[in-house]
């Protein structure tokens, strides 16, 4: 087995993090949401635009060569720029590419980001709302799916939930703890899309989306973008924000498919996490806060197992223990996550990880004494995964 280079540990830092307006932002395109988030990240960092020589970004899916469109709107030429296409795993992958490019002298300061107008897109008409599709038509299956009435990412992930429940006795109630705890975190976050309390009683009474998932098992449709700036540890010293170190990262891709092997109950978070832990020289016990890609409640549960926060099959008991709450053993998705803050395909979770490492939050939002954050990204037809471990400088 090839071991990831520990030389990459701690050589780069995130020096700026920003978001667009989140939730329902009618009349703003995906591209302009990304630009808004990037502008905010640049502005808080103190980085001069003329010092940015890399752009790695993703979104919106319906456009081609997205980094080019972003560079045009920000007036930036780049030594190193590209667009990643690993779905929700792209955003951490972008940061990994940025670190490697900086390490090898291909760029010095790299802007990474993602954004999408998914709320506006799915609320253009009643038909758009019912179809609830955020993918362009070109990504939809032509056979072996639509003829059976099989539509949408909720169903695909629900297959994993059914199988996990069958193998390990996981229950709907377990999924409910995840939805309820993340909503409670969102209520502490003034920027969050969801403003109403969610109780376990509300969760039990939810309408079906595709069983076993109901409404509150599913992440939000949001207009949302996020961005971060990566530069070398040396350059980070002279900037405005406390630098947050990139301690490790890893990726793994179960390209044989979500439906192959045991991939729907043992995700590629396992191998991506092992790589990131090894690069960082850390393990699950060292992690103070986790920001887990929560497209659906079940995906949080399996990733907690796959990352080694508990044993495989024990995720249900782990989430029921209250571990995920602020003040719990592993405060998770402390901004509300994609289930309750806003869905930015994992980008907002990177921003939240950075902010937790800066210790600038008011006490009711801050994970006390947090030194290490683990962030996950998952997507690309459910098989691509990326892991990022951040630490206080």
């Amino acid at each position, binding site marked *: 087995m090839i071991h990831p280079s520990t030389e990459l540990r701690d050589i780069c830092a995130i020096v700026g993090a920003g978001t667009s307006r989140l939730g329902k932002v009618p009349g703003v395109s995906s591209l302009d949401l990304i630009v808004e988030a990037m502008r905010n990240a640049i502005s808080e960092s103190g980085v001069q635009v003329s010092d940015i020589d890399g752009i790695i970004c993703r979104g919106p899916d319906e456009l081609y060569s997205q980094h080019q469109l972003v560079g045009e709107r920000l007036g930036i030429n780049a030594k190193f720029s590209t667009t990643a296409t690993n779905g929700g795993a792209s955003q951490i992958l972008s940061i990994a590419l940025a670190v490697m490019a900086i390490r090898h002298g291909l760029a010095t300061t790299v802007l990474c980001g993602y954004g999408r107008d998914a709320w506006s897109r799915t609320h253009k008409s009643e038909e758009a709302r*019912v*179809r*609830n599709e955020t993918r362009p038509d070109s990504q939809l299956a*032509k*056979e*072996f*799916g*639509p*003829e*059976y*009435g*099989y*539509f*949408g990412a909720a*169903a695909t992930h*629900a*297959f*994993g939930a*059914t*199988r996990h429940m*069958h*193998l390990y006795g996981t229950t709907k109630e377990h999924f409910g703890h995840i939805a309820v705890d993340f909503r409670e975190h969102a209520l502490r976050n003034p920027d969050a899309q969801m403003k109403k309390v969610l109780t376990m009683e509300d969760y039990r009474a939810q*309408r*079906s*989306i*595709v*069983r*076993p998932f109901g409404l509150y098992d599913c992440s939000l449709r949001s207009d949302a973008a996020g961005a971060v700036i990566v530069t070398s540890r040396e350059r980070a010293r002279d900037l405005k924000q406390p630098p947050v170190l990139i301690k490790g990262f890893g990726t793994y891709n179960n390209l*044989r498919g979500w*439906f*192959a092997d045991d991939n*729907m109950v043992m995700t590629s978070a396992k191998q991506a996490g092992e790589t990131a832990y090894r690069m960082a020289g850390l393990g699950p016990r060292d992690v103070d806060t986790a920001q887990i890609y929560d497209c659906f409640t079940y995906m949080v549960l399996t990733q907690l197992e796959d990352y080694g926060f508990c044993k495989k099959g024990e995720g249900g008991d782990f989430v029921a223990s209250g571990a995920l709450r602020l003040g719990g053993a592993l405060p998770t998705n402390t901004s509300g996550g994609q289930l309750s803050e806003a869905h930015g395909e994992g980008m907002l979770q990177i921003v939240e990880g950075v902010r937790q490492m800066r210790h600038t939050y008011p006490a009711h939002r801050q994970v006390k004494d947090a030194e290490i954050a683990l962030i996950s990204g998952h997507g690309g037809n459910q098989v691509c995964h990326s892991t990022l471990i951040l630490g206080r400088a």
Partner: protein
Amino acid sequence: MSQIPKPVPQPAPESLPYWEAARQHRLELPQCEDCNKHWFPPSRTCPHCLSTQFKWSQVSGRGKVFSFVIYDRIYRPAFTEDVPYVVALVELEEGPRILSNVIGIPPDDVRCDMAVTVVFDDVSDVTSVPKFKPL
């Protein structure tokens, strides 16, 4: 009341033999001439050994439900009469897993690892779709 047609498969060139066999109520999969394994979805290269020598061979049609989901809501008007319905991933005895519907049983009674066998639904004069019922 006018019936809204369901989506019909739009086969890739490599899946045409699959749908032609289904039209004749046979479940056929590509099988490698070198390693004898079957695979799905159809392609011209064996994903087990990368051989390009393969044949279309009829399989037993028996398998078990690996996992499943239940649709209660109507996301496309064409499925109005079907809800609640089951979409299942069926693991065939020969190994490959294929997506389909499990019919002939109340959705609430479907379980993982339940034994099923193929049946064919003639959705038009030219298209039949493989589905599964409890064995």
